[in-house]
């Protein structure tokens, strides 16, 4: 290999590395098309060009590459390329025992790790017919609703950041930091908690957590409303988001959407009410919906959800029963052969686990259904016809987390 100056280049010459890197991320794949759709996509019409967005683009929320086919500044078509973060979590879980599998699911949607633990824990409890103590269920609801607020707050910050506003992300990190500090007092970890156990939770509420929470609850509502002023009353933001990336109810259901993205089209589908689990039937909260189905609706819906989560936390604190936080279970569990499906309403939608037991101490099949993965494919419907600058806004409004998309 020689450089432009003609001398022999060493392997660690940065210019040589750069050339090779560019070759790797050519938008047009260096192999013949595998499907008709791929052949159709990678054929350019007159005046069209390919633009590679990612895998290191800051607005892809992780490592995602989107090949955009452009006509001028309009997106004609796109092809998301996944797998840069694929770790094979399902395979790892199938080779771990039931307790170990829980911690592998934590880093999937790393901003809402408790929900990732909740679904497998619920599935294993169903397989093993475990009765969870009521106090443990209340603690689960309390801690995960806190995390929902943190996740939604972070969503608002990221969304504004993708549109070019720097301030909201700093504010939302203040909010998130308070919450993860609280949870770290409860669970011992700031981000990947590994707190839920089969049959309960790992450790009861402690004084540190409760005093932080009580302190935060006195000003949470006011702080939340103050944060909203940054974006809700920002004319640039609202005009930019309104009417952008609109999806209607029928299409959203056909695209298998769930969670806030589906509720923003007017369907009050929330697993907490549609298929109640844990102690949600005892709690009073509303399911906010919006009818517009555009980016602004998806944003405002999450704002409303934060208010509902605050209501739920308040009730949990007032109605928290006494009692144990763990069911009595052996260290190694061997559920009888069977199948179980458990779904929780995460901040992004239905997070579900399908577990198959064959009677041994490891799950025979461990399927993780991640809402980010399902929602991300609808960019194929939402983006065409929009400007390149709006692709970031639309993708951010769907709130995908690449750790969950790539599993």
């Amino acid at each position, binding site marked *: 290999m020689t450089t432009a100056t003609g001398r022999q280049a060493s392997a660690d010459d940065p210019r040589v590395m750069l050339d090779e890197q560019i070759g790797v991320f050519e938008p047009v794949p260096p192999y013949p098309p595998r499907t008709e759709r791929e052949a159709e996509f990678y054929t350019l019409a007159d005046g069209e060009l390919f633009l590679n967005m990612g895998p290191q683009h800051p607005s892809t929320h992780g490592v995602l590459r989107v090949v955009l086919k452009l006509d001028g500044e309009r997106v004609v078509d796109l092809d998301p390329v996944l797998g840069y973060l694929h770790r094979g979590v*399902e395979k*790892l879980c199938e080779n771990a025992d039931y307790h170990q599998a829980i911690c592998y699911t934590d880093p999937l949607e790393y901003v809402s790790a408790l929900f990732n633990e909740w679904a497998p824990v619920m599935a294993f409890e169903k397989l093993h017919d475990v009765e969870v103590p009521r106090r443990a269920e209340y603690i689960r609801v309390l801690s995960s609703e806190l995390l929902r607020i943190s996740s939604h707050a972070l969503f608002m910050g990221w969304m504004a950041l993708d549109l070019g506003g720097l301030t909201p992300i700093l504010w939302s990190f203040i909010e998130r930091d308070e919450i993860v500090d609280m949870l770290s007092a409860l669970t011992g970890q700031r981000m990947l908690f590994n707190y839920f156990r089969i049959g309960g939770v790992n450790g009861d509420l402690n004084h540190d957590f409760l005093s932080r929470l009580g302190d935060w609850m006195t000003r949470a509502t006011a702080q939340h409303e103050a944060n909203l002023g940054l974006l809700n009353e920002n004319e640039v933001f609202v005009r930019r988001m309104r009417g952008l990336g609109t999806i209607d109810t029928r299409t959203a259901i*056909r*695209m298998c959407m769930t969670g806030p993205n589906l509720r923003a089209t007017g369907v009050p589908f929330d697993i907490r009410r549609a*298929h109640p689990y844990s102690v949600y039937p005892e709690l009073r909260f509303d399911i906010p919906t919006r009818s517009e189905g555009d980016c602004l609706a998806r944003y405002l819906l999450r704002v409303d959800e934060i208010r509902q989560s605050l209501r739920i936390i308040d009730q949990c604190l007032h109605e928290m029963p006494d009692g144990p936080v763990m069911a009595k279970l052996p260290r190694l569990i061997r559920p009888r052969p069977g199948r179980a499906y458990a779904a929780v309403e995460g901040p992004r939608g*239905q997070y579900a686990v*399908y577990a198959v037991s064959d009677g041994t101490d490891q799950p025979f099949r461990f*399927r993780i259904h991640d809402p980010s993965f*399902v929602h991300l494919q609808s960019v194929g419907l939402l983006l065409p016809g929009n400007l390149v600058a709006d692709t970031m806004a639309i993708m951010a409004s769907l709130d995908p987390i690449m750790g969950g998309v790539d599993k």
Partner: protein
Amino acid sequence: MDRALRRRLESRFAAQLSGPVRQRHDETEIRIAPGDVPDVLRALHDEPELDFEVLLDLTAVDTGTAMQVVYHLWSPTSPDWLRVIADGLSREDPRVPSVTFLWKGAEWQEREAYDMFGVTFEGNRDLRRIYMPPDYTSFPLRKDFLLPDDAARSPGAGVQHMERTHAPAAAAPEALVRRARS
């Protein structure tokens, strides 16, 4: 357990069911042949007394002897999850009709099942690998794909290959293939 749903399913799909309707906790499960998937799912989706309009999950399972494709559905008419198992796909050439004509969002989930298990979904317009690189040749979630650090479980046979190309039948030592007994 929703007994009424069980009766509805038994009377409506008497011809298609390849086993009893099973119920446990909050789940109802039916088994059908892979060829019946479009008819059964269209009926579940369209008929107002069933109304299973939401596809929650689509995945595949390698039981060690056969492949299954599993659909989870939700309907406002029943408090149960409905699980539809298309059972008895051959491990050599598993094929099942695609459901993208009902749920376009199933496209990527079918791509994932193809990538991980090698199940061919006939009618999916974009059935290519989604996570693994395009020149990858094996299907990682199959039971004959062994992890190199699976030593605790395996006597050591065949563990040296991380990317073991899928070879049909008897590829895995019998002791390593754990079977779903139910």
